[in-house]
């Protein structure tokens, strides 16, 4: 068992940004990516496992997505790095980080958790923001406010937030030309203040495109159904980026 203290990655997003779907994709639908180190994500408790599992139900055409399931309090996930062959000590996996969807509904992670975090993932629903100006304004406002709340390194010159911040544009499967789009420009298209705020506050940030199901869900009998088996895209990229930053920090 690992005795060293692990730092958490905080997952944060406005309501409807796709936090639960993102977590469900990490736990239930991860697929191996060629030439990338695989990861596995496990819920830390039965209640959390049940919550994630309830996010989707089997459907004759694939998987039906079920919304409106409240997360359990203090839900936590564990991220393991896994390998195909045993390592030096005959082990094939190692726990690398915790993932905490911090007060997902309130959108206000506790200061202690943030101070201890090794990284923050901020989710923004790209399709929803593109479809509605009201939703876009609300999300941009949430985003800039959230960045301002991140803990700053005492005495540091701006940008003073040293914790790596991964901004994930979710629902990208609903946008036809998502593959061709540059993630940073896409974020900026929702308002120049998004990037300005990022640059002003965060010393280390990156923008990612994420699709939790790989394909946009289709309406079937009153349900949103992902046809076939979900194949998440880009969901591990922000975790890899934060873990790489963490490793570099430790090496330094």
């Amino acid at each position: 068992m690992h005795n060293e203290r692990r730092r958490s990655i905080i997952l944060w997003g406005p309501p409807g940004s796709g936090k639960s779907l993102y977590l469900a994709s990490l736990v239930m639908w991860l697929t191996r990516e060629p030439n990338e180190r695989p990861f596995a994500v496990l819920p830390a408790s039965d209640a959390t496992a049940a919550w994630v599992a309830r996010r989707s139900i089997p459907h004759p055409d694939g998987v039906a997505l079920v919304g409106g399931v409240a997360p359990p309090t203090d839900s936590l996930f564990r991220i393991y790095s896994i390998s195909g062959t045993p390592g030096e000590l005959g082990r094939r996996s190692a726990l690398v980080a915790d993932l905490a969807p911090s007060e997902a509904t309130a959108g206000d992670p506790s200061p202690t958790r943030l101070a201890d975090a090794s990284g923050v993932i901020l989710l923004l629903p790209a399709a929803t923001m593109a479809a509605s100006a009201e939703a876009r304004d609300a999300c941009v406002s949430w985003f800039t406010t959230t960045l301002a709340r991140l803990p700053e390194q005492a005495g540091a010159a701006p940008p003073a937030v040293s914790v790596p911040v991964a901004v994930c544009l979710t629902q990208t499967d609903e946008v036809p030309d998502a593959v061709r789009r540059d993630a940073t420009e896409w974020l900026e298209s929702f308002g120049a203040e998004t990037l300005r705020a990022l640059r002003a506050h965060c010393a280390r940030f990156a923008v990612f495109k994420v699709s939790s199901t790989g394909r946009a869900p289709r309406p079937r009998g009153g349900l949103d159904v992902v046809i076939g088996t979900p194949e998440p895209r880009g969901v591990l990229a922000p975790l890899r980026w934060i873990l790489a930053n963490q490793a570099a920090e430790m090496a330094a």
Partner: protein
Amino acid sequence: MRRLTSSGSRRAVSPGGDERRRTILLWGAAESGKSGLVGALRSEGTKTVGDRWTVDLGEASPDVVAYADSASLALRLRGVKETAIRRPERAFTIPVRRYAGRALTAAADLTVLDPCGELAAEPTTPAARRAIAAARTADGILWLLETPLPGGRPLDRFAILRQLVAILDAASATEIAVPVAVALTKVDRLPSADMKQLFDAPEQGLRAILGDAAFGWLLAAFPRLRCFALSAAGTVRNVARPVGLTTLVDWFADEWRREEEAADTARTRARRSARVARVRRRAPLAATLTAAAAVVAFAGVAAARLLSQRSPTWTSSAGTVVPQATPTSPVVRVDSSQAVSTRTDSTKADSAKTDSVHVPSIASAAAALERGDAIAAMRDLSALRLSDSSAQRYAADSILAAAALRGAEDILTLPNPSIDVLESIVAAATAAIARAHPGTPVLAPLSLARAAACIGGHLSCPADQVREDLAWALLLGTPAEQDQARRFRAALVGDPVRVP
């Protein structure tokens, strides 16, 4: 007689019985093949040739015997007659043995935690949590998953996730560090090409069945995972010829052996490093202490011999004869209240006074130890008042360790061992252990001595303390002390199985 070992599946059992008995925990949902596995182990018991693992029901309760017999019968009558399997309602543990021909080569215990598969169905109930907590102490876990038939009902991934989380939760761990084998069972029901593929590449098969994510859960929770395919029944009609069973259980034995070898290597390295560090740090002091102890011990032995030759020493004066007292040691003060045994016979004491005044000292203790009177040595040592940090205390405790160990052995060989003396040994050793610096070599013989006094069964020592003492002796002791600790540990475990 040779004592059975539980590791080293393909080597003969070694004498000495210094290896611990290992436990495999059998886990699986209803219909996962637990009964088939037990039945196969039972059926293998009828063979007299080949390498095989069998179940030993010699001391099993009737319900467990009935379970194994009915499971074995069900395997043999599969496809011919539906045979009811009489499953026990409670968890049970049975020994399993490995034979090469008629020779017994290894053994382990098999714990069937949930014969009916009820806990797996509801792994979060308080009862399930209590039972699943056994995973914490198991040396290996065998998790059975029923291989889905082509076009049949797939495995319930959520059920597997819940069981995994429950096992980790019950173990209060983020991973299970012991070897875990996940076996796809009932593969004989598959088309022969599929079955062969599963035997050839069980991990790929399991990954294909579960998907990357769920396979990742297993790898994450069980870093030492290995996948197997298993047919408890085999492919021959009307007979149970398990396929993959021996390979499966052998893997646990191989892993344990590798584990022990790695631990031995680590211990040797640690001991060597500790010795080097200790020598570097304390070479001058150690040399002084060793010299001091040697001088004191030599002086004590010499004094004892001298006394035995010259006592009593007489001198004449004016027609009267008076005994002359022997010189007293300058090192110590007597405190009879601290003595190991204060119930000194007054007659003996009086006669001692008339012969010579016995003054306890390190030297007298060394002398007593040399002449084989370990109890007298301890009595002398416990009468001393020395500073805990003094060189004399170090020398005294070193002699105390040897005396306590020999004393315990002497006492325990008597038909009616004295509880008082055993208790005094434990008390003296406990006080010396409390004084010793953590990790110092004197801890090993002191711990060994305390364990020796406790293991006879005449005292009600805490079991944790005895185990800890033996662990210290194994970690810090000399090879001879380690051997003795292993013997004590084997006696403590009380493995009744002996091989001619």
